[in-house]
C-alpha cells in the first residue's frame, strides 16, 4: 500500500499516462474481473494473487504482453513457502511471456546467490545466476544498549526494570517505534509504559491480533505524525516507511543480526544519516545476545539462512491451479517447474507422485481412480474433471495457514455470555481453550475477564483487577539465529571480551568460571547437580528454543529407556534442563549416564521417528501441509468449517495415514517441513555433529550460575509423549480427592 502511494504521487505530479492498481485479498470482485480483461500498466500484487491470476483460463491473454516483474523485499520471501509459490508462478510466467525481465530488490543478505538463482530460470541441474547490483551502504547506525550496573534480571522477557530508560528514550525522540517479540510482551510493555507516562505522551499499540480498524487508526495517526511512540511486534517490521520515526527501541532479544538491521532501518529513511537504536535486554543472556548482535551489525556481518527445498504441498496446489487454467502436459509442466530454483532438483518420481496425489489422492490402494480430479484428454494432456474444482481451488489457494482464531468480543458486565459484544480482535483458539471463566488476561491494552466461549466468539468483560494473569499466548516465533548463537558462544568463551558487559553480567560469568567451567568454542557444557529431591542435567547448546525442545524430547526418551526416570524438561533459547528422580551424572565406572552416547547423532533416527509420530507440533505441521496441498479444505462454499473441526479431523487422518501408508507423499512433505519449521531438526543435527567428542561435563554439588535462568523459566513441555496422559491423570486425581473428602 505504501508502494502504491509512492508510485501514485510522481505519476500524478508528472501527469504520466500510466495506470497503477493494486490487487490483494481485499480487492473487490468487480475490480478483479476488470483487471483480468484490461490490466493496468503497473499491477502491485502478492504471490497468492499471482497464482490465482495464473489459474484463470484467461491467464494466457492477460500476461502475453508482460514486460517486467519487480520483486520487492525478496529476502523476506525467497526461502519460504510463499517463495515456493512465487517461484512456481514465475516459472509459469516464463512460459506465457518469455520476453519479460525480472528485477529483485532485497535488503542486505549474507549470501545473495540463492536470490540471484531465484530470479532467473534454472537450466538442468541449476546454477544460473542473475546479475547483481549492490547499492552503497548508508551511514553506520548508532546502537546503544540499555544496561544497568546495579541490576540485570536473571530471567523473563519483559524488561520491566528498564521501562524508565525506555520512557526517557521516547522523550528524547520525535517519534519512536518500540519493537517487542511477542504480542503478550507488546500488551505488557504498553501497560507498563502508560503507568509511568506522566507527561501523557501519545503512545499507541499495534499488533496482529487487534481488530483491523484499530490497526488502521494507529497507522493513520502515525502517518499524520500525531504519535510519539508505537509499541509493536513484527507486524511493522516490513514495508511501512514513516519518515518521522527517528528512534527504534528493541525490547528483548534481537534473535538475529539481519532482523535487527531490518528493525533499525525503520528509523530515519535517509541513507546519509545514521539510524538511532536502543536495545533493551530483558535478562542476562539477552545482554550477551544484544552485544553480539550490535557487534555483528557494526561489522556488517549477517546471519546466513538454511536453504529449504521447494515444498511438495505447494507444488500440489500449483498443479491443481495449472489445471484450472486449462489442460496441461505433465511432461511440459515438469520441465517448467524445474526451472524454478526451489524445484531445480525435483525428481521425476516426486513430481509424478504429486500429480497422482492431485488426481486421486496418490494412495497405494487405488480405490479413488473413478473419482479422479484430473482426467486424461485424447491428446494425453491432463484436464480438470469438473468446473466446481476450480471454485474450490480458489477458496483454498494460498500457503499461509493461520492458527485457528477466535473472535474476542467485549460485552457489558452482568449480561449473560454470548449477548451482544463489540469485536476487539482475535486470539488463537488454543489459547482461548485454556481459559476458565473468571480468568483475566491483557488484550488490546486492557485487563479482560473471560466470560465464556460461544459459537460466535470468546466473550469478555472489562476487569476491575489491575493485575491480570498474563499468559504468553504466542511464544516468540523466531528462534535465535545460528550465526548470532555462534557469536554469543564466542563471547562467553572469551573472558577478555567480558569487560564491555554490565557489572552483574560479568560477575555472573566469573562465578560460573570459578564454580563450574566456561566452555571453549566448539564445546558443549553439560552440568549435573541435585536440587530439592531432583537431579538436574543442564546443557547449553545456544541453538534456539525449537531445537532445544526437540532435543529435550529426544534426551528424555533415551533417559527413560536407560531407566533414569526423567520427570520433565525445560528449554529456552540458550539452554536445556532435564530433571529426573535419579542422578544423571556420568561416571566412568559404568552405571551413570554416558554423555557421548546420550548426545549421539543417532538419536535423529529411530528415536526421532517414534517421537514425531505422536508430537503435537508434528501433527500441526501435517495439518498445514494437508491444507496447502488441498487434502483438507479451508472452507467449503456455503458451509464454513470452524478451525477446531479442521484440527480434529486432520489428526484422525494423520493417524490413519501413518499407520497404513507411512511413505505417502504428504507425510514426506510433512517431514521435509519439520526439518526447518517448528521442530528445527536440521539445526539440531548440525549441533550434535559439531559437539561430537567435545562434550565437557561437570558434576556439581549445587546449581551453577549459568543454569539459573533456565530453571527460572516455566515450561509447558513434559516428558516425551506422556504429557497428555499425565493431564488426564491429574484431573482424575481430583475425583479421588472428592471421593475421600469428609464434609
Amino acid at each position, binding site marked *: 500500500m505504501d508502494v502504491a502511494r509512492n508510485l501514485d504521487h510522481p505519476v500524478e505530479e508528472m501527469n504520466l499516462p500510466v495506470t497503477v492498481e493494486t490487487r490483494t485479498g481485499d480487492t473487490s470482485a468487480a475490480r478483479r474481473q476488470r483487471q483480468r480483461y484490461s490490466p493496468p500498466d503497473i499491477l502491485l500484487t502478492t504471490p497468492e494473487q499471482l497464482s490465482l491470476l495464473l489459474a484463470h483460463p484467461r491467464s494466457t491473454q492477460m500476461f502475453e504482453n508482460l514486460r517486467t516483474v519487480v520483486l520487492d523485499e525478496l529476502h523476506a520471501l525467497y526461502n519460504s513457502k510463499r517463495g515456493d509459490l512465487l517461484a512456481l508462478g514465475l516459472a509459469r510466467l516464463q512460459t506465457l511471456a518469455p520476453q519479460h525481465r525480472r528485477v529483485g530488490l532485497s535488503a542486505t543478505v549474507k549470501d545473495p546467490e540463492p536470490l540471484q538463482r531465484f530470479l532467473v530460470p534454472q537450466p538442468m541441474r541449476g546454477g544460473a545466476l542473475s546479475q547483481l547490483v549492490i547499492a552503497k551502504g548508508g551511514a553506520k547506525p548508532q546502537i546503544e544498549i540499555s544496561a544497568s550496573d546495579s541490576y540485570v534480571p536473571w530471567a523473563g522477557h519483559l524488561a520491566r526494570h528498564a521501562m524508565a530508560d525506555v520512557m526517557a528514550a521516547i522523550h528524547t525522540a520525535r517519534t519512536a517505534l518500540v519493537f517487542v517479540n511477542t504480542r503478550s510482551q507488546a500488551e505488557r510493555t504498553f501497560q507498563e509504559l502508560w503507568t509511568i507516562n506522566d507527561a501523557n505522551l501519545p503512545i499507541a499499540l499495534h499488533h496482529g491480533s487487534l481488530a483491523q480498524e484499530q490497526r488502521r487508526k494507529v497507522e493513520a495517526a502515525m502517518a499524520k505524525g500525531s504519535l510519539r511512540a508505537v509499541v509493536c511486534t513484527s507486524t511493522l517490521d516490513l514495508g511501512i516507511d514513516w519518515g518521522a520515526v527517528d528512534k527504534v527501541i528493541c525490547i528483548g532479544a534481537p534473535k538475529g543480526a539481519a532482523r535487527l538491521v531490518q528493525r533499525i532501518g525503520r528509523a530515519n529513511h535517509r541513507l546519509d544519516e545514521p539510524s538511532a537504536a536502543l536495545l533493551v535486554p530483558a535478562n542476562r543472556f539477552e545482554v550477551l545476545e544484544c552485544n553480539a548482535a550490535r557487534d555483528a551489525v557494526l561489522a556488517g556481518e549477517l546471519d546466513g539462512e538454511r536453504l529449504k527445498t521447494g515444498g511438495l504441498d505447494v507444488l500440489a496446489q500449483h498443479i491443481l491451479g495449472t489445471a484450472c487454467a486449462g489442460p496441461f502436459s505433465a511432461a511440459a509442466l515438469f520441465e517448467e517447474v524445474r526451472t524454478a530454483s526451489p524445484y531445480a532438483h525435483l525428481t521425476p518420481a516426486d513430481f509424478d507422485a504429486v500429480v497422482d496425489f492431485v488426481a486421486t*489422492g496418490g*494412495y497405494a490402494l487405488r480405490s*479413488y481412480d473413478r473419482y479422479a480430479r484430473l482426467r486424461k484428454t485424447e491428446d494425453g494432456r491432463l484436464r480438470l474433471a469438473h468446473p466446481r474444482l476450480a471454485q474450490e481451488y480458489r477458496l483454498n489457494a494460498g500457503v499461509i495457514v493461520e492458527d485457528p482464531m477466535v473472535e474476542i468480543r467485549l460485552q457489558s458486565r452482568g449480561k449473560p455470555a454470548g449477548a451482544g459484544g463489540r469485536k476487539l480482535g482475535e486470539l488463537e483458539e488454543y489459547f482461548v481453550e485454556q481459559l476458565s471463566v473468571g480468568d483475566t488476561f491483557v488484550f488490546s491494552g486492557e485487563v479482560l475477564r473471560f466470560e465464556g466461549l460461544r459459537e460466535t466468539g470468546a466473550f469478555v468483560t472489562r476487569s476491575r483487577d489491575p493485575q491480570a494473569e498474563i499468559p504468553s499466548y504466542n511464544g516468540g516465533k523466531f528462534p535465535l539465529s545460528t550465526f548470532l548463537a555462534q557469536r554469543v558462544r564466542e563471547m562467553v568463551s572469551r573472558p577478555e571480551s567480558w569487560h564491555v558487559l554490565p557489572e552483574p553480567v560479568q560477575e555472573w560469568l566469573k562465578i560460573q568460571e570459578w564454580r563450574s567451567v566456561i566452555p571453549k568454542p566448539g564445546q558443549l557444557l553439560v552440568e549435573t547437580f541435585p536440587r530439592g529431591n531432583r537431579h538436574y542435567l543442564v546443557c547449553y547448546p545456544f541453538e534456539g528454543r525449537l531445537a532445544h525442545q526437540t532435543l529435550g524430547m529426544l534426551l528424555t526418551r533415551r533417559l527413560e529407556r536407560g531407566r533414569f526416570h526423567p520427570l520433565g524438561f525445560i528449554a529456552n533459547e540458550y539452554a536445556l534442563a532435564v530433571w529426573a528422580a535419579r542422578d544423571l551424572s556420568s561416571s566412568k565406572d559404568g552405571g551413570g549416564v554416558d554423555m557421548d552416547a546420550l548426545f549421539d547423532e543417532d538419536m535423529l533416527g529411530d528415536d526421532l521417528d517414534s517421537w514425531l509420530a505422536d508430537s503435537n507440533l508434528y501433527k500441526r505441521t501435517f495439518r498445514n501441509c494437508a491444507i496447502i496441498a488441498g487434502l483438507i479444505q479451508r472452507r467449503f462454499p456455503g458451509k464454513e468449517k470452524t478451525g477446531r473441526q479442521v484440527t*480434529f479431523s486432520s489428526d484422525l487422518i494423520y493417524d490413519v495415514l501413518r499407520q*497404513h501408508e507411512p511413505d*505417502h507423499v504428504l507425510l514426506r512433505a510433512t517431514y521435509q517441513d519439520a526439518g526447518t519449521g517448528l521442530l528445527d531438526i536440521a539445526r539440531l543435527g548440525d549441533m550434535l555433529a559439531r559437539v561430537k567428542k567435545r562434550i565437557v561435563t561437570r558434576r556439581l554439588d549445587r546449581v551453577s550460575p549459568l543454569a539459573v535462568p533456565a530453571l527460572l523459566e516455566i515450561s509447558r513441555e513434559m516428558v516425551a509423549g506422556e504429557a497428555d496422559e499425565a493431564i*488426564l*491423570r491429574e*484431573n482424575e486425581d481430583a475425583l479421588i480427592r472428592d471421593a475421600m473428602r469428609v464434609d
Partner: protein
Amino acid sequence: MRCVWIETGDLLITVNGETLLLDACGAAFSPAHSTLIFADLHFEKGSSYARGRQFLPPYDTTNTLLRMARAIARHNPSRVIALGDSFHDRDAGERLGPQTRQLLESLCRAAHFTWITGNHDPHPPIWLEGEVAETVRLGGLIFRHEPLAAFEPGEVAGHLHPCASVAKWGRNVRRRCFASDGLRLILPSFGAYTGGLDIGDPAIATLFAGPFHAYMLGNRRVYAIPRRVAV
C-alpha cells in the same frame, strides 16, 4: 456411583445395576451377557468424501475393523452389538474393498452380531451376517442408536460421539469418552474418521438430570473425569 479399575486398564462401572467394562479402545463389554458393544463405526466414511473429490486416506474401514478385531480377540464375546451408524451411508456396504469385506465377514463369524439401525444406515446391506434390529434388551439394559429424550433406565446408546476436554499446565487434552450417570450410558464413536461433540453441548448434557462422568479414553486406560472438571 462406584467404579473400579481392573488391571487391564479397563474401567468397571455399573449402569442400572448391570456391570459394564469400559475398554480404552472405546468399546464396552458386559461380562454377564458376554456381549461386546461398539457405537458409530461409520464404515466407508472416507470413500463417501471421495465422491465429492476429497481424497482422505482410504484406510479408515480397515483401521476400524482391525481395532474391532483386537477388542473381540481380547474379550472373546459370544455376542457383538453395533449401536447403529455402522455404515456411513446407503452405498457404503457396496464400496467396501474385497479385502475389507473379507475382514468384516471373518469378524461376523467370530461372534453373533446384532446390527442396530441408525440414521446413517436405516437399511444395512442385505448380505450382512447377523440380525438387524432397532432396539435390543439384555437384562437391565436396553440398546438403541439414539438416546431417547424421555428417560429410560438402562439405556445404552451411541449417535452423539461424545468428547471431553481437560486442561492443566496450560494445555488442553481432548479425547473421546463414554458418558454415564450410572443409569444411562452413551458410548464414544469407534469409527476412525468420526469427530466428536463436547459433553457440555446441550444434546449430551441435558440427557443427565444429575451429575455424570466422562470416561475419557487414554492411550492404555480409561480415565474417570467428573463432569465438573471436564468441558
